[in-house]
């Protein structure tokens, strides 16, 4: 009996332990489900805000418009329907505010009760007109035609340069500038962090005596412990004004500021991982080099570093990963302009910063909300790719060092 009870407890405990061990896997799966379910909504929802319609004359042959085309029309960069594959007819823009140009207040009646009727008439009369108005003014027997807006496509999402998720009449959901902004800032960060990180790792692993090492190592760990918002604050107060002054810029919030801060933040990752990699160099290999008359530096540069190369690569990639996903510090120092970056001295906007800055204002279920989840998906995929790459590299290393 006692034995039975004991076995039972053992089994139950093992069951609990097993369940706990599945939590991380479940979380990853749930993250995927929730992120992608919301994110996919970007492609199944009209870019025109709910409750509004785009209408044209019913003889207008255009059946659907993309968000980008609509923007061109409303920015008056396209003024003739033929440009969009329609008839040769100039485009007449109509916003609800313009109604006064066509009808008097009396004609519209009190509380605009004649508005639907008048809009209908207007759309019928003007063959080139395109109108954007609330669907509560849509007459029952509307004599124009409500235009179908095509949903954002995957291609438009990734190649679109315009990120105006709340633009009227139609949201612009191009994430290219955000992706490039993220990569740009991260690239800068790694260019800054790699030389210093690697030098420190080499110094710690091969050059410093154990006393120096015992002091430096905890300091590097400390660097990793500083919260990103504190880095952001430091950047905002010291680095941003410094950049503004040094380069004589209108604003100091630039990609460079982001790269510097992210570079500092990526240092501990790079240092720790590449130091570990350098340390795996077999002692015998170093001794063989010294026994051939190489000095320590020759041994480091010709044997130790090549041997640890895959580990160093992994360190660099993980450093980039850390930079790509970093939110608060970047949000605070990069200026957040959603434009494709050309130099390090302009403001840029990264994916995480965009999510952090905009999610608070995006109503749940709104297209904007979904687009931000779409950004989350991109971020998730980038970091997943980084992880898999690192896994692959270190897997390969384990194989070669086995012989």
């Amino acid at each position, binding site marked *: 009996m006692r034995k039975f009870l004991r076995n039972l407890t053992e089994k139950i*405990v*093992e069951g609990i*332990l*097993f369940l*706990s*061990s599945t*939590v*991380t*896997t479940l979380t*990853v799966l*749930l*993250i995927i489900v*929730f*992120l992608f379910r*919301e994110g996919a909504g970007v492609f199944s929802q009209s870019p025109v805000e709910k409750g509004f319609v785009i209408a044209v004359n019913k003889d207008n042959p255009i059946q659907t418009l993309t968000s980008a085309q609509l923007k061109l029309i409303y920015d008056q960069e396209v003024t003739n329907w033929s440009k969009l594959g329609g008839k040769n007819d100039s485009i007449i823009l109509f916003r609800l505010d313009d109604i006064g140009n066509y009808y008097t207040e009396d004609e519209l009646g009190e509380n605009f009760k004649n508005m639907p009727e008048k809009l209908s008439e207007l759309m019928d009369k003007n063959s080139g007109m395109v109108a954007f108005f609330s669907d509560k003014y849509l007459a029952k027997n509307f004599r124009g035609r409500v235009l179908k807006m095509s949903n954002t496509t995957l291609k438009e999402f990734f190649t679109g340069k315009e990120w105006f998720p709340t633009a009227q009449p139609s949201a612009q959901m191009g994430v290219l500038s955000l992706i490039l902004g993220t990569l740009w800032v991260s690239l800068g960060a790694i260019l800054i962090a790699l*030389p*210093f990180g690697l*030098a*420190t790792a080499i*110094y710690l692993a091969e*050059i*410093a005596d154990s006393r120096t090492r015992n002091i*430096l190592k905890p*300091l590097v760990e*400390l*660097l990793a*412990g*500083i*919260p*990103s*918002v*504190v880095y952001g*604050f*430091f950047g*905002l*107060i*010291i680095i941003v004004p410094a950049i503004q002054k040094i380069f004589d810029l209108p604003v100091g919030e630039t990609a460079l500021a982001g790269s510097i801060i992210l570079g*500092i933040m990526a240092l501990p990752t790079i240092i720790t991982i590449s130091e570990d990699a350098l340390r795996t160099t077999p002692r015998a290999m170093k001794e063989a080099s010294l026994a051939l008359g190489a*000095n*320590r*530096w*020759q041994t480091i540069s010709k044997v130790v570093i090549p041997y640890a190369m895959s580990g160093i690569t992994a360190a660099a990639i993980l450093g980039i*990963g850390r930079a790509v*996903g970093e*939110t608060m510090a970047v*949000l*605070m120092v990069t200026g957040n302009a959603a434009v494709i970056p050309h130099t390090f001295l302009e403001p840029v906007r990264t994916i*995480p910063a965009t*999510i*952090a800055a905009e*999610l*608070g204002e995006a109503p749940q279920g709104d297209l904007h909300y979904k687009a*931000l989840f779409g950004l*989350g998906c991109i*971020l*998730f995929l980038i970091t*997943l790719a*980084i*992880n898999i790459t690192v*896994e692959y590299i270190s897997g390969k290393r384990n194989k070669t060092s086995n012989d």
Partner: protein
Amino acid sequence: MIKFADNRASKQRKENLAFLTFRIMSYFVVVILAVIILFLLYNGARVISWDFITAMPAEGMTKGGIFPAIVGTLCLVAGSMVFAFPVGVLSAIYINEYAKDGLFKRFVKLMTNNLAGIPSIVFGLFGMSLFVNTLGFGDSILSGSLTLGLLTLPVVIRTTEEALRSVDNSFRQGSLALGATKLQTIRKVVLPISFPNIITGLILSIGRVSGETAPILFTVAAYFLPKLPHSIFDQVMALPYHLYVISTSGTNIEESRPMAYGTALVLIAFVLIMNIIANLLRRYFSKKVKMN
């Protein structure tokens, strides 16, 4: 017979130059750290007072203290650890002590690694979508703690696993050979030996959690809420978010600057203290182990 060029001098020169460069660059990294910490210390120390720590924010967060933010952060740290610590430790025990080497173990490890690599803002999105909206917890300590808990779970698992792995197998075999069951062996032998390292890992993850901002942005953090929470369904202010708010979008950024310095100092002091405690513990326990 080889004619060796006498390159000794140039070899030596190159070595000296390289070593000097590396030393300077390493020290530069330390200098950066020192600058950040001294800068915050210098500017923040003037602000810190008993009042600052214990008072409510006042006058559009340009005066008063940061008491609710401190309480909020403590709530979140406690909440996230209540979740992450048991789950993480149990999970690590399963992986290290029970799971056989094979597909399952590799898969779980891969997933844990992946979870560790997911950016914190994505946790924020996820937490908002699952806890705040789907499960209906709203912006609350509960949502925030669970989000933060999931975020640190991989850290807890990893440090615990390391601690368990450092227990020599001979202890396990010795105990099993005496007729102890697996569970008894883990409880009476493995856990006590690895306990110090597990605790050290816990303390380090507390340090990390207390500074996280992105995950709490949309799950719990309040912009301004000069009262203390009553239940886990309340919103709270939190130190890192508070620092973000008053340094970027407060009602009067210039005037709240001293508040920002103070907040940053409190935040970093918290992390520092956690780090130091962890290091001291590590050293203390490793000495004890050596003596035994």
